[in-house]
């Protein structure tokens, strides 16, 4: 693995990363722009961040978004985990293939269709659109992501752990809570985080299912951008990027150190 860095390698890495991150870097830089005009640099300033916290509309939207994301991620995690457990455990029920396919289908379904169909449902059952309809919609689509993440962990889970718990006197549900859940918890947490971020940045489905008084941050940003991009929007986006990156970094550090620690322990145990 000691391949030398050739010119070709360096160029492809630079281009690749530039392609991925240049727009984001520009956005972050311009959020510190003094000028009101987004594309003209007029010196460093943090005034748009101050401005941002005086914009009640944006703050309200952010608060709605966080609440929606929190509730929908939590409910989706519970339901998605249950779905994953039944898919992995009960391998011999009729129509399992169909059921599996139906859980995964929303992953590849165009969001417009998901949004539209949910809108039709809410209208037809006369459900007043607002905070709860957005939340329900987000539960619906993020559930499948949680199911996929948890299922991939459960496939490698040694079923005899749960049997051992039952053998030692645990009723089945307790055995799940005391043994299975703690073991698969990292997958459940990353499922929750995935659901949370998906809900945080969803625009299409929210636009279809939202109603008065339940504007989410992406909707707000999108509607403001149509009137022209202000540095304020850049500031909001920079904060969002910051929050998401910190979350991702913490999550990866946690899993990484645990893995490293585990390997070191195992080596120590076998060296004895």
């Amino acid at each position, binding site marked *: 693995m000691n391949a030398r860095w050739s010119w070709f390698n360096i160029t492809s890495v630079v281009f690749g990363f530039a392609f991925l991150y240049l727009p984001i870097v520009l956005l972050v830089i311009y959020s510190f722009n003094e000028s009101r005009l987004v594309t003209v640099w007029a010196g460093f300033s943090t005034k748009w961040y101050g401005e941002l916290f005086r914009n009640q509309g944006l703050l309200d939207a952010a608060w709605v978004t966080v609440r929606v994301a929190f509730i929908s991620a939590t409910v989706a995690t519970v339901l998605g985990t249950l779905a994953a457990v039944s898919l992995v455990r009960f391998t011999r029920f009729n129509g399992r293939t169909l059921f599996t396919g139906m859980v995964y289908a929303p992953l590849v379904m165009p969001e417009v269709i998901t949004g539209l169909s949910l809108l039709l449902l809410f209208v037809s059952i006369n459900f007043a659109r607002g905070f709860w309809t957005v939340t329900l919609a987000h539960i619906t689509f993020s559930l499948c992501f949680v199911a996929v993440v948890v299922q991939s962990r459960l496939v490698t889970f040694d079923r005899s752990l749960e049997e051992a718990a039952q053998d030692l006197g645990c009723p089945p549900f307790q055995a799940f809570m005391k043994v299975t859940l703690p073991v698969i918890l990292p997958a459940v947490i990353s499922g929750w985080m995935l659901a949370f971020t998906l809900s945080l940045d969803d625009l299409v489905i929210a636009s279809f299912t939202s109603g008065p008084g339940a504007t989410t941050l992406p909707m707000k940003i999108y509607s403001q951008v149509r009137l022209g991009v202000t540095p304020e929007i850049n500031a909001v986006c920079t904060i969002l990027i910051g929050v998401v990156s910190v979350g991702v970094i913490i999550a990866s550090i946690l899993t990484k150190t645990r893995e490293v620690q585990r390997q070191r322990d195992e080596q120590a145990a*076998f060296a004895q």
Partner: protein
Amino acid sequence: MPSLGNIRRSFAPWEDPAAKPYISFQNVTKRFGTFTAVENLSLNVYEREFFSLLGPSGCGKTTLLRMLAGFEEPTEGELYLDGQPLKGVPPHKRPVNMMFQSYALFPHMTVADNIAFGLKQDGMAKPERDERVAQMLKLVKLEQFAGRKPHQLSGGQRQRVALARSVAKRPKLLILDEPLGALDKKLREETQFELMDLQQELGLTFMIVTHDQEEAMTMSDRIAVMDKGVIVQTGTPAEIYEAPNSRYVADFIGSVNILEGKVTPAGEGRIVLDGPDGRITGAVRDGAPATGETAWFAIRPEKIEIGRTPPEGAVNRLEGEVWDIAYLGDMTIINVKLASGTVVQAATLNRFRLVEDPIGYEERVWLSFNPDSGVVLRS
């Protein structure tokens, strides 16, 4: 009549018709879809017995254990534990503990917490529980590892934690699924004796599944040899080894030479088998095969004498050429090819360090054995 050696002669409840079985399988069948894992099986195991189920993988022995532990329900038939029917009793309500093949230690708990798990579940008070855990750790010699997590232990240590956890609740019956499968040979031999001591010390009934015949022979009071969902033979290790009831059992336990022939009677308790390898006289105890029937004479390698000259007065003797010699230290195994092409294995104990002129390759040799050193098998 000389009998087969039974070491624990005083302990033989299976010979007592009045003894009450502790575990009783009655005409148990288990099917998975169209596959029959266990077929119409009946078996009694007695209290304090060390009972082994022996068979190749896929013979249904693990399914039998899982039915006992409650993870599978029999499709047909009844299962009794201490006289109580087990039908419909879920695993967590059975007074049975199991040691899993994969050990199934809870990875997120320390060694002590793993052992305490079942006790906690029973609502045992903390001081009592701590005392029991300490006692168990001492039993398996892991006192200084109480605070470790399972992945910080070696394979042998994990195995002992699993054992401690499964006996911590003092179950009357302990089920062990290939308990020593993951250990290396030396550790396995040590652990076999530890298991036997533990069973004696705690007065438990052990039901163990293994595919290792040596392991079953070493530890068990009785062995059941299984094949394709049925028990082929049940008996003490000596009975299984010295008086197998079929070629399958004879071949599964230890090494054996099987010589085929057509039956002709040869006086009181004897028959002659006429086959491609020559005429072999065998002793029959009960149920002599009919004249003209095909039967087999099974004889263990260590019961065959080997020499350079035709043995005087031997009833059975075969001439052949030395084909292979395997020196194992304690014994030497010599494969002899007969004129018919059959290879017969003979084993001699190396009782002397220095041997003058040992038998070598391609030498002409004579094999001889007594009619009652082997068994006549009809299947």
